[in-house]
């Protein structure tokens, strides 16, 4: 399945054990509210595993990090998992400096992410 729920969500694919959301563009103050709404919508279907493909995300700020933290809370509340893959060095460094790399599951690729 492929949908364009906003200009950051490039694709939403549903696999048997996971929903994979591919993002594209800067996750910043301008785009975070729409991204939050889109991810809340996806999390509303309670996928066992919400996998975020970040390979199309060149930049993230604290509003973007906050969006992921809020959605992470929703997913873990229903005992689901939220997993990231495809982080570039810039995005990873923001996760690290906010110490969220200790809380989020970050994988190297989609195969690992769908099985983590």
């Amino acid at each position, binding site marked *: 399945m492929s949908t364009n729920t906003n200009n950051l969500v490039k694709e939403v694919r549903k696999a048997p054990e996971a929903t994979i959301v591919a993002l594209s563009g*800067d996750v*910043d*103050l*301008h785009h975070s509210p729409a991204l939050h709404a889109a991810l809340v919508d996806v999390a509303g279907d309670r996928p066992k595993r919400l996998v975020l493909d970040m390979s199309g995300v060149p*930049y993230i*700020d*604290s*509003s973007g*990090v*906050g*969006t992921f*933290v*809020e959605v*992470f*809370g929703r997913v873990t509340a229903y005992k689901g998992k939220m997993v990231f893959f495809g982080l570039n*060095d*810039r995005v990873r*460094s*923001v996760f*690290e*400096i*906010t*110490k*969220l*790399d200790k*809380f989020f599951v970050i994988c190297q690729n989609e195969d690992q992410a769908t099985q983590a």
Partner: protein
Amino acid sequence: MSQSVPIELNITSSAKCLPVVRGAVEKMAKVEGFGEMDSHALVLAIDEALANVIEHGYEGKDDQPITIALMSVKSKDGHPGIAVTVRDKGRQVDPGKIKGRPLEEVRPGGLGVHIIKSVMDEVEYSCPPDGGMLLRMVKYLGGAASAAFGNAPEEGQAKGLAQKGE
């Protein structure tokens, strides 16, 4: 400290302006010899500062003035760097109360000041007498903040960062 002529950007308090500022800052950082991660750190700090002005100083109003000035500088020991000022006319806040929050709390919000203080070598907020806020910050090539950003900090480094942010 030697200084050059500043570059000044005047924007309104709209989040739509942020990518434009990020592009300009990144170009200047590269001209001044900043590498990939130091450029990113500078861009991120300015972006976070502007987001705070938009969200808190102007409480989301998108038509208010913000001036960003950048200039190349040198530290006392000769390290090149970029000094940045962010000037707004929004709500004034006691500079002593502008602090990052503990990272042990996993929740949205409050991370911008932590990021700014972690990636920049100098950060100083002030309340000009004619209103608004003035933020002055500096990043030096090879400065203390450069070592930690872009590399997973070891325990000792993380402690050092936390102390630097206070």
